[in-house]
Structures are given as structure tokens and as C-alpha cells.
């Protein structure tokens, strides 16, 4: 017996009748009367399919790298290992083996597997601007740090979204200006002061 899929109301959590699905407009929930629009797609009725690899029939037939008793179905598009239907993972339009996916995730070689990125350009820019707002004195420390971060992480990956290096450029320029300001301040304070 298969259970029919249900969609629950966003407000009261009770199942919404299917008459309210895909109406293209807001409809009131019969339980709480809250207005909502529900759009259902064919995936709601699709069941997950797990395929077991086929067993070897002929001696000398290509076998799976991970399951030697299973027949190879495809080759990994990254490392070239033969894979059975069970080991083959289709990801981002490529057929890969589990090991390549794992290494791609750990080494951040597969962009679509990344779940977090640190934004060094934002950090560098914040290190140059925030101390100015808080009082100029912290810039004596933060400006060189921002300059170092900008140069060190110039080629580090930033956001996966479209983004230029303008933040790095601004951070470098402002940090240089701050360092120049401190240098001039030191020059006039010590050397000129001593001369007088």
C-alpha cells in the first residue's frame, strides 16, 4: 500500500487538500483559513531508485573497482576507475566514483559540494574601515594586517557568486593611506619635533 504524498499548511501544519495545489493563486487553508499558494512538481510522486550492480557473468569481463564481483557499467570521469551501477554517482553532469567526490569535497575541487566559504576580501575591508569609525588609533595595527591579508589571499577563492576583487583593491588602498598617515605622523612628531 502506497501513501499519497501530502503538503502541509505553512501556518497550522495540517495537510492541505489537493484541490488547493497548483491553482496559481492564493487559496485559504480549510483548517486555519490562511492564504497560501502551493506549487507541486512531478518529483513529489517520484520514488528514490537504488540500483544494485549486475553480477559478473563471463570470466575476464571488466569489473567494478570497489566490487570485483560486479560488472562495470561506467568509468569515473575523473580518475578512470571502472564502476558498477551501485558505485556510480552522477553529480553536476559528471559520472564520478565515491572516492573522487570525497576528495573533491575535502580539497574543495568540486565547487557544488562546498557549503561554506570564508570571505577574506570582506575581512580585509572591514579591518581598514571599522577602526576609522571606532577611533583612528587601532589602524596602526589593523592597517598592516589588512594589507597582509589582501596580498596573501589575493588568489584565494572568495564567494561562489559573481564577485570582483574591488574589496581587496579598496582594502589595499585604504590600508596604504592609513600607513602613510601614521608614517607622516611619526615623522612630524619625532624628527621635526626634535629639530625644534
Amino acid at each position, binding site marked *: 500500500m*502506497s501513501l*499519497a*504524498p501530502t*503538503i502541509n*499548511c*505553512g*501556518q*497550522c501544519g495540517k495537510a492541505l*487538500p*489537493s*484541490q488547493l*495545489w*497548483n*491553482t*496559481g493563486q*492564493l487559496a*485559504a*487553508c*480549510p*483548517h*486555519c*483559513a*490562511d*492564504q*497560501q*499558494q*502551493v*506549487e*507541486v*512538481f*512531478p*518529483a*513529489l*510522486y*517520484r520514488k*528514490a531508485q537504488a540500483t544494485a550492480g549486475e553480477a559478473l557473468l563471463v570470466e575476464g569481463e571488466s569489473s567494478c573497482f570497489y566490487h570485483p564481483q560486479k560488472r562495470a557499467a561506467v568509468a569515473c570521469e575523473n580518475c578512470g576507475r571502472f564502476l558498477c551501477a551501485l558505485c556510480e554517482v552522477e553529480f*553536476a*553532469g559528471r559520472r564520478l566514483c565515491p572516492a573522487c567526490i570525497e576528495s573533491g569535497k575535502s580539497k574543495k575541487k568540486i565547487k*557544488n559540494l*562546498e*557549503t*561554506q*566559504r*570564508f*570571505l*577574506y576580501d*570582506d*575581512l580585509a575591508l*572591514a579591518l581598514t574601515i571599522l577602526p576609522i569609525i571606532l577611533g583612528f588609533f587601532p589602524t596602526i595595527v589593523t592597517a598592516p594586517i589588512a594589507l597582509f591579508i589582501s596580498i596573501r589571499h589575493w588568489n584565494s577563492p572568495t*564567494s*561562489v*557568486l*559573481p564577485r570582483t576583487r574591488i574589496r581587496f583593491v579598496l582594502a589595499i588602498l585604504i590600508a596604504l593611506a592609513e600607513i602613510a598617515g601614521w608614517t607622516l605622523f611619526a615623522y612630524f612628531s619625532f624628527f621635526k619635533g626634535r629639530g625644534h
Partner: protein
Amino acid sequence: MARKEKEYHRLASARMTFGMRVSLWRGRDHLLKVTSSNFTEDYRRFYFKDIQSITILKTNNGFGWTVVMAILTVLCLVIAFAIGGMGGAIFCVIVISFLVLILAINVALGPTCKCWIRTAVKSERIESLGRLRKARKVLAALRPFILEAQGELTAEERAAAEAQQPESPAVSQAPAVATPFVEKLLVGIEQEDPFPHPAAQVSVAQPATVVAPEIAPAAVPPPLVVKTPCCLPAFCLLILEGLIAGIDIAAHGAVMMVVENIMVSALAIMAIIALARLPHLGITARVRSTLIATMIFLFLQIFVGTIAMMVLVAAHHPPMANDQWEMLKWCSRQSVLKTPFLLGLDLTVMVIDLLLGLYGLLALARFRRLTEPPQALPAIPPAPPRQES
């Protein structure tokens, strides 16, 4: 040199939620939710082929902000009128401009909503889709991509979708007609049919003599029974209180003060009872928020009124400040038209009472319209037999 194609296209700009910025982007084969906080970005990907449903729930948050901003703007206007001086007026104009700007932006953006994307493993809230208009626009933009990625339903899946229809004997007796829900599921809304339904094709290819079966009326969900006790008297009293405040400007006296105080007390009791007995449902949110606004306003009215009286008495007759009865008598003798502060206070009370009362009545009417039992759609008569060309 050919321009490099963008990998991600922005669907919804960043929206602040609890110190985080959440935005929504469309990739080649997936939807990307980006949460930015503390120099890091977190990514959630929803592949088009995995998205089972998208739900948009209309909320009243935007409306609540509109009411709050409108009340604050009216209050500032009255304060500016009462102060009268140049400095205070300039300050009030600046504050009013700022409030009106926020109010205009809020109204222009339209009603608010919450949006969820459901996949086989989880249901995720999309915070960046906070406005109904934007959410529906994004949904319309995504629909073709999702339908293209998910392809056609198999016979088994189609049967499951058909079985989802409400149980109606007439529907089950007419299997040759493509049920509306499955048609919508396959083609989406206002889209060309990318996955033609076999049943629909069969019905076209049938001989001309076949009479189309009668389509059963849509199943009517049970009516929602929700009562709003004391709400109507509370809003009527509010309008009456506004009118009395208006009369008080012209004919201020001891009788009017007593009547006004009785009205305020009755109104407060009625609003408390209405709030306590009103069920906590989304549909009653508008009525509830109006009642809460009324309660807050009544409190402010009593508080500001008492302070105003004390300040006025202390300024004119300091020894009288200790005797409350004398204070009341002195206040009842004052002319409202000659005291700018009292005039401002009465005008504020009149405007806000009338606005809240009228809006409460409108919200109540809307609530009753939404909860009245829906009428069954009439059965569609059978179509005449087609002529063979």
C-alpha cells in the same frame, strides 16, 4: 572575445534576518540559498530535479508595520501641531518625512509572505522571499527550469497523482477526462503543455459521436467555524469614542469628561474580552492586531491624558496638584480650543479612534467574508456532440 556566461543569476536580493543576510540565486541546474554572516557565506543547494513543492504563505507582518508607521506619523503630526514652535516643527517634519518614507516603501513592496521549498529529505524556509509579489515572480521564473529538469511522469507516477484527487463518485466514473489537478501538475500555470497528457490526446482522437461525460462539481471543504465575540461592539465603541472626542473639542465640560471616561473604560473591557476570546489563527491576525493597537492606544491615551492634566495644573495652580478632584474640576472648566496641548490630544484621539474603528470593522467584514461557507460550483453541463469535419 566572447563574454563569459554568469554561473549564478540573482533571484532575490539579500534580506537581513537575525544579523544574517540571505539571498537566493539560480544556477544552471540548482537553486542556491546564500546565508552571509561574519565574513563567511553558507550555501544550500536545491537541485531542480529534487524540488517537490514550493509553498508561499501570505502573512500580515507588512500590514502590521504599515499600521504602526501610520499611527506614529499621525502622532508626530499632532505633536507638531501642538508644539507650534519653529524648532519643534522642523524636528517633527524630519521625523514625519522619515516615517512616511518607510511607510511608502513598505506599501510599495506589497504584502509579506513566507516561502518554503520542499525536497524529499527536508523543507527549507527561503527567508529572502519575504514579499508576496517577489515570491510569485520568482516562482514563475523557476517553474520552467524545474519542469524541464524533472521531465515527464511515468505511468505509475501519473496514477499516484490521479489517485490524489478528492474522492468523488462522479470523478471516478469519468476516467477518460484528464483531471484538472494532474493537468496543472504537468503543465504548470500559464505554460505551454510540455508533457502532453495521453488521456487528453485520447479524448481528442475519439469519434465524433462520443458525448463528453459530465464533470462533477469540485469537492467543497468543510466550512471553518470561527467566532469573533465582542469584536463588533468594541469597534463600534471605538468609532463612538472618536465622535465623542470630536464633540468634546467644541463642547468641553464635566459631563463630556465623565462620558468620555466611561466610554474608555467600557472600550478597554470590551477589547480585553474580545482579545481573550479571539482564536489565535492566521485569519484572525488582522482583527487581533487592530485590537492590540486599540489596547496600546487606550493605555497611551489614559497615560498621556493624566500626565497632561497634571502638567497643566502644576503649571497654572501648583497647590491644586495634590487634590485630584479639584484637578478634574479645573480641567473640565478649561476651553480645549484655547489650550493647544488639549486640542492636540483630542484631535489625536479622534483621528486614531476613527481610523482604528473603521479599519477594525473592515477587517471584521473581510474575516466574515473569508469564513463564510463556500458554495459548491455548479456541475458543468455535457458538451454537445462534435461534428465530424
